[in-house]
């Protein structure tokens, strides 16, 4: 099969790293060759972050190139637009209807546009989900990341993999059940 590319983006602290860990582990156990690239360091301090996941028969570059992602999953609205040029023109966007103001917007120097979702939807197939609201329904705001992972898995037709086992093996015992529920909720949202 041709190598597929999933680009997970968000803001430092939103849990993209756990989502990509579960995703890549599942893909590996399903028998795919997998590569994943992240940038650590300065960007953690409230900056824009990305996890780039690629899988297939044999993967070469761990990095997704411009116009190379099959799907862009954004944990925050503005980040979807920032990373959109990495999506294939026929690719899909899953965007969390969630806003984290960057410093220039916090200080009022620049405007955080209300037209982001509109701009995304007008250019590319876009699924807008409210993972924040869904997470609160489940009683833990932190599982937003696994809800988004659930939506990603559904969109990429990867539901045959035993994700419950992946969660059991990789999440602390006390959080296994809520993450399983979150994953399922995410699948239902798309």
């Amino acid at each position, binding site marked *: 099969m041709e190598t597929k590319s999933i680009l997970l983006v968000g803001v430092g602290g939103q849990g993209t790293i756990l989502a990509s860990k579960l995703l890549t582990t599942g893909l590996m156990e399903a028998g795919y060759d997998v590569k994943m690239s992240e*940038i650590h360091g300065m960007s953690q301090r*409230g900056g824009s972050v990305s996890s780039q996941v690629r899988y297939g028969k044999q993967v070469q*570059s761990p990095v997704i*190139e411009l*116009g190379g992602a099959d799907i862009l999953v954004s944990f925050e609205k*503005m980040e979807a637009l920032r990373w959109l040029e990495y999506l294939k*023109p026929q690719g899909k966007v899953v965007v969390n209807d969630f806003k984290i*103001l960057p*410093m*220039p917007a916090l200080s009022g120097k620049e405007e955080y546009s209300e037209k982001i979702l509109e701009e995304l939807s007008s250019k590319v197939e876009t699924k807008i989900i409210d993972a924040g609201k869904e997470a609160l329904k489940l009683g833990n705001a932190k599982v937003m990341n696994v809800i988004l992972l659930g939506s990603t898995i559904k969109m990429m037709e990867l539901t045959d993999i035993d994700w419950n086992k992946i969660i059991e093996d990789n999440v602390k015992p006390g959080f296994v059940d809520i993450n399983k529920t979150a994953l399922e909720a995410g699948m239902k949202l798309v």
Partner: protein
Amino acid sequence: MKKLMTGNEAIARGAYEAGVKFASAYAGTPSTEILENIALYKEIKAEWAPNEKVALESVCGASIAGARSLAAMKHVGVNVAADALFTYSYQGVTGGTVLITADEPGQHSSQNEQDNRNYGPFAKIPVLEPSNSQECLDMVKTAFEISEKYDTIVLIRMTTRVCHSKSIVECSDRLDIPLKKYEKNGPKYLTLPSFSRKNRVKVEERLNRLEDFSNETELNRIEDNKSNIGVIASGGAYHYGKEVFGDEASYLKIGFSFPYPDKLIKNFSEKVEKIYVIEENDPIMENTVKKLGIECHGKDIFPSYGELTPDVLRKALYGKAADTIDYNKDLVVGRPPTLCAGCPHRGFFYEIAKRKDVAISGDIGCYALGASEPYNAMDFNLCMGGAFSTAHGAQQVFDMNVDENKRVVGVLGDSTFFHTGINGLFNVVYNKSKAISVILDNRITGMTGHQENPGSGYTLQGDPTEMIDIESLVRACGVKNIRVVDPNNLADMKETLDWAVGLDEASVIITRWPCALKKFSKEDKEEFGDLFTSKYKIDFEKCIGCKKCIKTGCPAISFDKASKKSFIDILQCVGCGVCSQVCPVEAIERVEM
């Protein structure tokens, strides 16, 4: 056992499997997780060193005493360790010795971009370049064999993407490598000129033997796809090349890049008509190919800086990358890194930013963010530990210039002070400048993700150890004027800066408050009390919309244009209280949680 590992985790696993017994490092992106992961293997004595030179020297000592030993550092760290490196090259090893350099093409988290493959020919030592995690693991093991067989320290060059990308790795068991018997050997290990002149000759002979190895080893291999196009590539760039050319090219995959495999390059050049050399940063292999009289393309089409990711290669080769979506990029607001909510550096930068009578000499760490909005409180910064020395030199010259009545304030952190900052303080005292030296002691190494250091009271493994006291150390340096201040108390912070600027001689200010993201130790709780147990909120009735709180640059505070009021995000606020001190109408109130 198959596992997904980053390159850094795989280096650690390789060290474990290779029977390494001692490892040392100084934290620095993208190398930090190498030692953190080595520390998970109880069989290896792993230590944070105060700087890279100390790390490498300790590793050399461990090798001399008979153990397989490994040092890891970021690219600029090798500059710090270079003095030890160049002479250890002459001495050779007892237990195998490997140095990992983590280079940063693209400068994701670094002050420069330097190609440390250059240390190969410069220090006359072999260089290996893994391209993925499996190779990281395998090459560490091979590097130790080369080190012991050829009696040399071996350099492994990683890059950010190799360090921080995950791929699938097959693990095996740890080799049982006993300690070598220690024998006193003056001609080998004493660097007296009479011995070193002989070892100098030995180094040249070693290079000749290593060149033969380079031509024979499977680390360098030809992948013949019967194509007219040939690609010579190493490290992460090999996979980028394969992504773009696929089976349409033949490859000379270089894993052992110095000494160069001359014969193999000639052999490869006879199989293809057109050669592309794909290497990140300097044209090292390209120049080697050209020196052999072989035509090739390299830096004439590919950039000499930044990463050579597939899109960069495509643009260089075909004039354009893959098709992308055209959209309104004007809607995108930048998201620069900021000092965190509750960062103890905030109070210092907020106060010093208001002063017009100072020039600020910064350093490498979280406090470099003091240079950005809204503080703009940094004039220059150079390298790790350089703040006080550059401040000193600048102060000496400002003092010659009657028109430039500036006090220079050097600013660095606790870990940076221990790294090499203290040497700069010696210079300030010894050579009698009146530079002001500020140590932002947040009780941890922050930017790289919370590593213990000689002042934190704990080892890499979290065992309690001697806590080196910065104030006593500063006093012992001969500094007469020392103040320790809580940076979250803005009135104290301002008064302390006034005091320092008012003195006509050197002073040291130590701001002491733990990093808001730190896991607080028993000692932290004893010294600082109930840390971050309250929050602050804005009384909208009182808020006059003056934006003074916004100017503290706290990411938990935003300004709502519609209501013209400030707003504190309760989830982000950790209750440092800096904003409440700048509010002119007492609209920001403390809330106990």
